[in-house]
């Protein structure tokens, strides 16, 4: 039923989304924690930067990342000096770009969950002898679990759905950077509507099921 190229695109997409989601949980959690608790002047500018991908056309984000990671860009020069070559048109390049692109969808739900906690549970933990890291892992993270769940789902789904950034930064290399959304575009360009239908249908059902699972397992959020 699925052609090899379609299957390869699906597997590549899942691999990309999984890696990006894990990376974003690791990077996004400290950022979300800082944003939720800081009184620093920097909160505004940093929040705006994190949220940029929501409003920026993906082609713009992709363009700047392409320049930055290209042979003459600062990131490109750095990766070259490490002997890694340049990132555009590679899978790692796609991962880096996707991390930026999906960042707000992971940071914001976690940040909201941390903000909703308030000071009290952490103060209570402090009076019960828990140090800062201890409080974070035993009180803040468990209580923010719904936020983490939402963040994972949105980060994963959003990465699966990206198109413009992939085109700009990854091109269209089978098995390396050709993800499902690009594959669908190719099918349509080639007037292969049956193939396009199949992949598009899979994406639609997948996205619906992911969101359904989120709302079913997260009743408090669904109620709001």
């Amino acid at each position, binding site marked *: 039923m699925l052609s090899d190229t379609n299957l390869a695109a699906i597997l590549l997409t899942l691999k990309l989304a999984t890696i990006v989601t894990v990376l974003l949980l690791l990077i996004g959690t400290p950022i979300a924690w800082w944003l939720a608790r800081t009184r620093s002047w920097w909160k505004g500018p940093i929040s705006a930067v994190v949220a940029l991908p929501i409003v920026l056309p993906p082609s713009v984000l992709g363009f700047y990342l392409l320049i930055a990671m290209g042979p003459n860009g600062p990131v490109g020069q750095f990766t070259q000096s490490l002997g890694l070559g340049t990132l555009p048109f590679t899978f790692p390049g796609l991962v880096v770009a996707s991390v930026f692109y999906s960042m707000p969808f992971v940071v914001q739900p976690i940040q909201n969950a941390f903000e909703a906690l308030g000071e*009290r549970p952490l*103060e209570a*933990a*402090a*009076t019960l*002898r*828990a140090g800062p890291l201890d409080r974070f892992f035993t009180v803040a993270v*468990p*209580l923010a679990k719904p936020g983490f769940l939402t963040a994972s789902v949105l980060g994963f789904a959003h990465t699966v759905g990206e198109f413009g950034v992939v085109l700009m930064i990854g091109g269209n290399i089978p098995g390396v950077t050709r993800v499902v959304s690009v594959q669908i575009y190719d099918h349509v360009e080639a007037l292969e509507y049956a193939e396009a239908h199949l992949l598009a249908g899979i994406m639609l059902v997948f996205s619906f099921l992911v969101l359904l699972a989120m709302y079913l397992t997260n009743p408090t959020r669904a109620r709001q």
Partner: protein
Amino acid sequence: MSTIKARFALGFTEFSLAVDLELPARGVTALFGHSGSGKTTLLRCIAGLERAPGGYLSVAGEVWQDGDHFLPTHKRPLGYVFQEASLFPHMTVRNNLEYGRKRVAAGDVNKVSLDQAIELLGIGHLLARRPDRLSGGERQRVAIARALALSPKILLMDEPLAALDLARKQEILPYLERLHDELEIPILYVSHSPDEVARLADYIVAMEGGRAVAEGPLAETLARLDLPIRLGEDAGVVIDAAVGERDEAWHLVRADFAGGSVWVRDTGLPAGHAVRVRILARDVSLSLAHQEDTSILNLLQGTVTAMADDVHPALALVRAEVGGTAIVARVTRRSAAALGLAAGQPVWLQIKAVALIG
């Protein structure tokens, strides 16, 4: 040195705290005042939840804050009970109780065992439940047990009953009295309720506008006529007494105190049991002669020692000594003038109501 030395100065835009206190590190010390008087802020400074730069704090000889030295909250050997129970909703009652306890160095938890804390607060049947399956009163009892199970050097309580209705308050007060009676742990108790203070406190710090305006042992301080905090209808004295003779036929017991005794309703306490007797100033009237035909049971002979204005210009507070124990009466100034009341004058105190507390 078994004292708490606390010196803090904090300035916010509409509120400032400036205190320099030396409090006994034993029994229950009440930080008493109206809302906004700074009592909770002071407690938070003592817990290290609020940082007052340049402050000084030592508890029973250990310096917790001095100059640049600031022991963070989680390193202070204290227990803290918030106004709302603040249990961890993702843990069972048992896990809540063990959360702090397992973070205390093994050698430091001997004074109060977990079982003792559970028994003392009567929460043995709740251990497997989650906080959202508890009533407000039960939650607060778990929160107190959780703080107690740390075997803290001092227990800080921030209006632990204020968020509860009257019935729940009555449910918890006996447990608090047991803490007071059975444990050696000093308690700092923030409250705006004269009732709670009268029942629980041994020492009182009256706060107003971020300053400590009066402090001293409870009985002595409440008997002061110049107490800067106006208690209004709650003005009155608390007297330490012991259960004496019992009048089975009329369901009364006699509470004996230094220099006198009063008859109160029999609540079943055994003879010799230490009790507190609270007599509100509004329930005491004065006469120059012994009244024979009166329904009032408690007539005491005393001597006027001081008089002062009360909240309303029609009223005056009169302090009389009954064999060394001070009792305050509220009378109208017209009556005081008619009786010619003055310091040194012998009077009869007619006590309409006596509350047995504790």
